[in-house]
């Protein structure tokens, strides 16, 4: 290999790493100010009390698509129905399940098919019917089940849910997610407190593996005790408490998580709903909503709230992780091929000038650059050309910086008050943080590259089922919520 190429790569890596570290430091500082503002002005109990007794509290619809979820659907729907909020409805979209998901719902909630005048505001696969309860239980009256032909994607099912919701705002979640009891109060508040129109709100999500759930409610939060969900929990916490909080501060949020996010229904419909062909449908949705608002010349906000509102089950093994990350990698690549006109485009404000270039340079390109780095180190090692006197300093610097970031997110987590039940549980985070750069990160680089490869060569991708182990339950029993 020519020496100039080695020199060029060396300088490139130094500059790139410096930029990555600087961006992380800048985001950590911005996130601190965001959390400080939240800590100074926000009082959860006070907000809940105010909203509970007000007739002005807006209604919220929860849309949860379900596909072959017969093992968990009843517990999870009960969990959604037992949320605390004055005016909400739960819309479960049965996306043509091949198992007994729909039958179980009908049986457990005393549902009956009703004559419903369905209007396709967003195009979806054919609608089969809408079910409502005959029971006198007031909690069940909040439930609506939509049955439709399988569309093959979560996006199509979500769109069918959006077509039938009756409130101005809807929360999109997965049927396997465990929601915090007061999650709806927390997620609606930014839309009410902002002086600008809030089109989407994202809340912090964590892994439910290892935590204890009773009657569909999280009763004890613990970190996952197996490595892959633990790594993912650390990754999620870092992303929500530093990345998204910082971007929310400057109104440059890139994404509202598909696991738990709230959207303005009117803007979603005007933006065309979720794209069924997208592998990053949540990110694509936010981009199209922002595109619509900017093209219309309207002011908007996309907000991240620091409190944990939702727990989801992380991939339990490498096979599922591979599928998830390959899909994310492919989705990111696809996203940029669809929305490339927004990058460096002043019309799209912070999103076009800051967020998209940042993702392009530091998220989409990173796996390629890192993979080149690994190959280069391997080649140097074979050629016995590694300078061991200097490489350790660079490695130590990056490693210590990764530990610093973990310490910062633990402090933020404690600051915003969404901590684990036992403080010593954070030692698991420390463990994950020490192992992550050595094992987890290189594997994810490989999975992301696989996703890029599949997108470039147009390999057909099937939406695989997420293998669920289910959350730990303190008292396994059939629970019936009351309003």
């Amino acid at each position: 290999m020519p020496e100039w190429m080695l020199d060029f790569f060396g300088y490139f890596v130094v500059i790139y790493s410096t930029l990555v570290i600087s961006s992380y430091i800048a985001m950590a500082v911005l996130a601190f100010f965001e959390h400080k503002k939240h800590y100074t002005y926000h009082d959860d109990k006070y907000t809940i009390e105010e909203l509970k007794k007000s007739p002005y509290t807006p209604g919220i619809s929860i849309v949860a698509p379900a596909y072959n979820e017969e093992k968990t659907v009843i517990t999870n729907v009960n969990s959604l129905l037992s949320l605390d909020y004055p005016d909400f409805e739960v819309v479960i979209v049965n996306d043509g399940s091949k198992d007994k998901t729909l039958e179980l719902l009908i049986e457990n909630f005393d549902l009956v098919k009703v004559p419903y005048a369905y209007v396709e505001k967003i195009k979806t696969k054919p609608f089969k019917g809408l079910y409502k309860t005959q029971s006198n239980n007031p909690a069940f009256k909040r439930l609506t089940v939509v049955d439709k032909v399988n569309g093959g994607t979560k996006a199509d099912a979500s769109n069918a849910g959006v077509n039938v919701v009756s409130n101005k705002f809807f929360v999109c979640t997965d049927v396997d997610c465990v929601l915090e009891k007061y999650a709806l109060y927390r997620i609606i508040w930014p839309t009410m407190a902002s002086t600008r129109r809030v089109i989407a709100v994202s809340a912090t999500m964590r892994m439910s593996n290892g935590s204890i759930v009773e009657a569909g409610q999280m009763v004890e939060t613990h970190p996952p005790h197996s490595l892959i969900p633990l790594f993912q929990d650390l990754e999620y916490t870092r992303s929500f408490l530093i990345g998204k909080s910082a971007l929310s501060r400057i109104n440059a949020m890139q994404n509202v998580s598909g696991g738990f996010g709230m959207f303005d229904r009117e803007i979603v419909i005007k933006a065309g709903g979720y794209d069924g062909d997208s592998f990053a449908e949540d990110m694509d949705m936010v981009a199209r909503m922002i595109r619509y608002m900017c093209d219309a010349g309207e002011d908007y906000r996309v907000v991240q709230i620091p409190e944990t509102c939702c727990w989801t089950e992380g991939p339990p093994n490498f096979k599922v992780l591979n599928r998830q990350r390959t899909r994310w990698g492919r989705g990111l690549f696809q996203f940029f091929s669809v929305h490339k006109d927004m990058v460096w485009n002043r019309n799209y404000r912070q999103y076009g000038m800051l967020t998209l270039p940042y993702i392009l340079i530091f998220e989409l390109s990173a796996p390629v650059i890192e993979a080149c780095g690994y190959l280069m180190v391997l080649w140097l090692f074979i050629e016995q050309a590694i300078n061991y006197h200097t490489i350790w300093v660079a490695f130590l610097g990056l490693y210590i910086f990764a530990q610093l970031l973990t310490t910062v997110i633990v402090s933020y987590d404690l600051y915003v008050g969404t901590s684990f039940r036992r403080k010593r549980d954070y030692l698991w985070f420390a463990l994950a943080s020490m192992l992550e750069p050595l094992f987890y990160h290189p594997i994810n680089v490989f999975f992301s590259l696989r996703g890029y490869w599949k997108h470039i060569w147009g390999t057909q991708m099937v939406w695989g089922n997420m293998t669920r182990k289910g959350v730990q339950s303190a008292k396994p029993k059939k629970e019936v919520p009351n309003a």
Partner: protein
Amino acid sequence: MEYYTLSRYAYLRYYVLILYYRLAEYPPVVRVWAIFSTLALILIVSILLGIILRAAKSSADLMIIANNRKRYYDHMKEVAMTPRALEPGEIVAMLHLPKNFKMKERQNRLLIPVMHELHQEIHGVMSRVNWQRMLQAFKMPAYFEEQVRSRSIRKRVVAFKDVIDLDANLKEAVASRYLFTKDRKLQIHARLHAARFGTSYPFKVLEEDPNLVFTDELVVKYHNVLVYRSQNGLTMPNFIRWCNRVPINEELRIFAVNEIRLFKRREDCAELLSMLENSRDERFSCAIIQALGDMDYVPAEKEFCRRYLSASFTERQVLAEALGRINSGSPEVLNFLVEDFQQTTDYVTRMRLLRVIYNYGRHGRDAFYQLKATCSPDYAIYFEHIECNLIDSRRYA
């Protein structure tokens, strides 16, 4: 032999020099990385120390709160539940407080959660006089004043919230300093405090502030304040005056109309109707229509029908709903609704009209079935949808 004592900064310099000279033969990039790693390590240690100190402090606080609950809760409850007005001396004796009782800031702060818990439990049945005197015995008003005057914005905001939560007494002069402060959130809390406890006319600031942004958060909070004032016999604002005299803030006018509706001020209906006739703003008109509909103001029907033909899409929906709510049984209105149903092509409006016709008394029900009998089979699902009482009526909007 000479001994040198280094100061803390000299130690730091000495360390950096060692780091520099030990790595002097390395390229600058490596030296920068080494210094960066050291700084990162120092930060990690500092943050960890901070976390440990904070955790220790919060666990100590929790212990003090538990002690306070154990020591004062029952005595405080006894004082607050005594129906006759107790003398300050009696209260001190009942609380077992020493004669020259003083509390430190932290003790006051940690007593608030206990008081809040008690207030939540008994606020509907307690003696307000004794509650206020008990707060005096614990020197809470002085504590709140000190907090409101402190430099920390968080302390000020928390103090205002605590005063509201505990129905405490804070001098108006202290709170009024922040009524026009630049910090919007602090300003909101100061104004809410004034609106809740003000004895003269505390809503003047809303009328006089040209930069007022009346968000949904304020709508919720001010409504709760107004409910509190009406329950406690305090002066209420003249909503009609807000509708007429505050043209600078459209949101406030809409809020006033909604409050007329929620407080069922039927005496203002005639004036609202005359405002509707002259109104050009769609949101304001919709608020008035909704208010008149909710208060079953029958004289508004004629104006509603007149407006309907030239109204915008949103206003039409509200007008149809309002006509349905008034539900006077008037054949003219029913004919109007049926005619419009037959003429309109828009799905949402048709469904809404159909729902109104279906619920418009016995004649309305008859008209509904006549329409059903004459409609094409493609539209039969609309009628079945309306007839099905299991479907939420908002679902077609």
